[in-house]
């Protein structure tokens, strides 16, 4: 059953091509023929952004063994950075009749705070989507990796990080909208962001869906390429035996820092593309449980695999939105139960289900065979296939 490296590569690329065909051609086609509603395509776009977020966590956790419980910090920072641009393009047609964002009028600001000014430029905001999460990861990662905070400690420290972000962003004085956050976006580069059916304005819903799909495709391509390089192999070597890597002349801290920063940037871009499709953002994006959900996506889909996180993110999100509607009160219990079962009995996630099934079939077959032969020999059937039971 061992797939050779090149056959594995081919199957990944074929899957990616199919995925690209569906998201970049099929969905846009159905959408333009009116087969998909605006809010639906926005929902699909959000799933794709979440999938990219999951892939970024997988890069860290699945491939390098660094469990980050604060991946949404970077997602949120990307979202906020882009949101600042969108907020400054809402225009004056609001409650307070000024060019300032509403919450600033409400808090009594008469002019834009200095750190908001550069975000009037689209280019600057797009840049900030990349460098703000990147620099944040660089600083935190530098401190964490330098003092060799790994494993459980790293997980808890990143959770503390997202907690700090949460309490900060909920404060009005932090100048990012406090509890209400950013919402009511209208325009981007002068064009309307959202369609209005009754005025027949066309929005940019499809554009953002396509951008989200592109982000995911590029990210997955990057994953496929990276895992095949010496770098990608070192990454997995760090996960399995960091000391050996260190004593082979690699500065593992630099590797981890690079991966952490890269993952943060991917998460940041995902957050920025997610924002206009979600319609708003507030401090709750930094709630520790939001980042835990990302971990769940990766764990359920299968960590350390190319497609696992994508499957996990989309499947769980879709399941969640369906179950929330159908089983308003018990959906969390159902989801928690499913999740528990997967963690306990399917540590490799859904991606490993196929392999596992094959394994079970083989065990069953060999058992029956053993059973039959043992019957014939009338020998105590001890130790047949016991080790595969675990």
């Amino acid at each position: 059953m061992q797939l050779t490296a090149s056959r594995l590569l081919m199957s990944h690329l074929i899957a990616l091509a199919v995925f690209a065909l569906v998201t970049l051609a099929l969905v846009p086609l159905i959408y333009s023929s009116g087969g998909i509603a605006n809010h639906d395509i926005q929902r699909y776009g959000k799933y794709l952004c979440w999938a990219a977020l999951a892939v970024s966590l997988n890069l860290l956790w699945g491939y390098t063994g660094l469990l980050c419980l604060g991946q949404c910090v970077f997602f949120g920072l990307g979202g906020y950075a882009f949101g600042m641009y969108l907020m400054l393009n809402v225009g004056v047609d609001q409650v307070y009749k000024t060019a300032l964002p509403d919450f600033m009028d409400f808090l009594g600001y008469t002019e834009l705070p200095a750190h908001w000014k550069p975000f009037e430029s689209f280019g600057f905001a797009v840049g900030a989507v990349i460098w703000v999460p990147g620099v944040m990861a660089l600083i935190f990662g530098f401190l964490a990796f330098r003092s060799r905070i790994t494993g459980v400690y790293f997980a808890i420290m990143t959770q503390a990080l997202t907690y700090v972000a949460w309490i900060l962003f909920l404060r009005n004085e932090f100048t990012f909208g406090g509890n209400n956050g950013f919402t009511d976006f209208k325009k981007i580069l002068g064009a309307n962001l959202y369609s209005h059916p009754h005025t027949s304005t066309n929005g940019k819903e499809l554009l953002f869906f396509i951008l989200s799909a592109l982000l995911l495709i590029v990210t997955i391509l990057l994953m496929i390429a990276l895992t095949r390089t010496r770098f990608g192999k070192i990454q997995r070597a760090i996960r399995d035996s960091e000391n050996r890597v260190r004593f082979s002349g690699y500065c593992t801290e630099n590797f981890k820092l690079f991966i952490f920063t890269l993952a943060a940037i991917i998460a940041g871009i995902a957050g920025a593309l997610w924002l206009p499709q979600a319609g708003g953002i507030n401090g709750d994006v930094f709630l520790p449980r939001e980042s835990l959900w990302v971990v769940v996506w990766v764990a359920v889909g299968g960590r350390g695999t190319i497609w696992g996180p994508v499957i996990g993110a989309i499947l769980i999100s879709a399941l969640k939105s369906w179950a929330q509607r159908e089983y308003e009160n018990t959906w969390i219990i159902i989801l928690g139960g499913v999740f528990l079962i997967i963690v306990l009995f399917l540590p490799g996630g859904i991606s490993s289900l196929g392999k596992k099934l094959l394994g079970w079939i083989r065990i069953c077959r060999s058992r029956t065979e053993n059973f039959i032969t043992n019957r014939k020999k009338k020998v105590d059937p001890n130790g047949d296939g016991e080790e595969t039971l675990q």
Partner: protein
Amino acid sequence: MRNLGLIIPLLLAIFGLPAVAVSESIKVREKLAEAAISSEEKQIQILESLIESGDPFIAKVLIAWRRGELFLIEHEGSTIPVLLENADSKEPVKAFALKNGKVLNGKSGKKLTFVPSQQKAAETTRNLRAQIKKTTDLLAILNPNPKLRAEAAFKLGSQGKPEYLTALKNRETVEDNPKVLKKIKEGMAISQLRIGDEKQRIQAAVNLGELRCIASLDSLERIIREQEKLTKGEKNIDLIRETSKAIKIIEVHKDWVNKGQTVFRGINYGAVLLIVSLGLAITFGLMGIINMAHGEMIAVGGYSAYLMQKWMTGFFGPEALQWYFLLAIPFAFLAAATVGLLVERSVIRFLYRRPLESLLATWGVSMILQQCFRLYFGAANVQVNSPDWLIGSVSVGDMSFNYNRLFVIAFAAVIVLGTGLLMSKTSLGLSIRAVMQNRDMAASMGIRTSRIRMVTFAFGSGLAGLAGCFLSQIDNVGPEVGSKYIIDSFMVVVTGGVGNLLGTITAALGIGTADRMLEAWSDSPVVGKVLVLSAIIIFLQARPGGLFAANSRSLD
């Protein structure tokens, strides 16, 4: 003396005495009864004469009188002043004769009842009301309860009336309680500051400074403001100088008091942190399970307290509020330990070799439990009441310590001590430590490791339950009562050094104090928290293993 303040209400509550207490002195009663039906002139005379008796019962009657709750009832041909059992009642209630405190009986010996709103109340004139106020004010500094006496002394002084000043002076000569004496002195000084001559005022300012009287800051500052308005010739330079000096002294003192209070609040918060993290120090610190369900174990404890309260008040009535909590403590421990036991057997025992997955699994458990709370108890907080004996405070100097805060600290000390003893002195503790350090070795020594881990996890969960039971007294109990504390708890355990009880204690108190001090310093709870968390991250740079990390040789 301090205890009396606690015991008397307790006794009252337990024996359910009516608000109208039986007065020792019938003479006083008779005089009051006489006053109720006399002319204004006579009334004022009687009230004046009553002051020196110092009986607090007088004040009680006078207050009722002023409120219109002293009733005059025509009974057997004469007008009898009475107090009714409950003046707000819409139903007929019993009446107590003011004269002797006895219940009014009819001819047949049957107790008579009256509807308050239909009775004639004893009237009060303007002059009488002034006299009532004066009498009650002056009686207050004779109150046998030193706490009330001290309070009254200061209040009297700050009214700045000459006759009160005299009363204070008289009291000063006989007062033997040093705390009350201090208050009387403060009251006299503040009185003199307002009504004395120039010389007396200067002396009063000096005295207030020496007494470090925080409550007089306003009055002193007012002096400065008044003096500033005056022309140069009118100004009293000496008064300004002495007043400013006093203000400075008092402000320094106030600063210290505030600092002391902050430290106390810090220790108190540290104790809360310690209580909520102790269970985690066992399940995460010792066992290595990243127990995200710790918060829900706390919630189990909180809801246990709620259920116990509900059952006990349902069965024994509202008096049960005074003691149900004592039953809730063991119940919360057992309930959380049972839940912990089930979780360990059904989930965690499969994950001992996979610590990061224990995080995921316990988070799943936490989601499920939290939703179960929501379904069963509702998403809103449930009401858990504190017994009366946890309300109130004790003061030392100008600092006051709430009973429930002191209770937190005592509670933390008791459970930490208990846990410490269990771990170090019992054979169970020995087995636990053996299994946690080297499971295979312990197993080969004949210890049933699987059972030990089950017990340990249940014990850790039980401690979390205790934390929740206790949190029900200072916080709201809701589905998320515990998950609020989960990150704080992890920070405490990590900062203290995993698997080290002493480290957990130090870290909890350190983080608690630092948090409250930074909060006081920065004037914002958020800045304080952010700074503390940043400090922890930087601290872990220097000591990645925490405060008390074992610096041992590793095997490779």
